[in-house]
């Protein structure tokens, strides 16, 4: 029960942190004033770092299972764009 509560708390914070990444990214690209842009850019990097910390903690506990793309699908995608190089 305690672990379930911890998981729900982390899930909520991960969603909120992802939303904050979005806000900081828009703050950066919409700011022309150098010091404002720099502050949002640094805030974006810091927020991405926090998002990764939460994700890594959840993944370590098996709370965030992720799948790997099949090698055949990767090859197909690579082939699709091969003539761009």
């Amino acid at each position: 029960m305690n672990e379930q509560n911890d998981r729900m708390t982390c899930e909520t914070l991960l969603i909120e942190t992802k939303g904050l990444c979005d806000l900081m990214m828009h703050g950066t690209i919409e700011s022309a004033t150098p010091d404002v842009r720099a502050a949002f850019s640094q805030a974006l990097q810091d927020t991405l770092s926090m998002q990764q910390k939460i994700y890594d903690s959840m993944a370590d506990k098996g709370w965030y299972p992720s799948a790997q793309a099949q090698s055949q699908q990767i090859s197909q995608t690579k082939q699709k764009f091969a003539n761009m190089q």
Partner: protein
Amino acid sequence: MSPKELLYVEDALNHEKHMKTCCTKSADELGDPALKNIMTDMARMHQNIFDKLYELL
């Protein structure tokens, strides 16, 4: 600072204040000590971001 930038700064300050409160509350509620430490660190980081954005005003 443009009016649009000011709106973004205000929005970000509100979110940082909210996130600091959430992380502090979560640190109290979480059972796992490692997660508690992460949330405590994150509460501090949100305060730091808030301070840097507030300095723009």
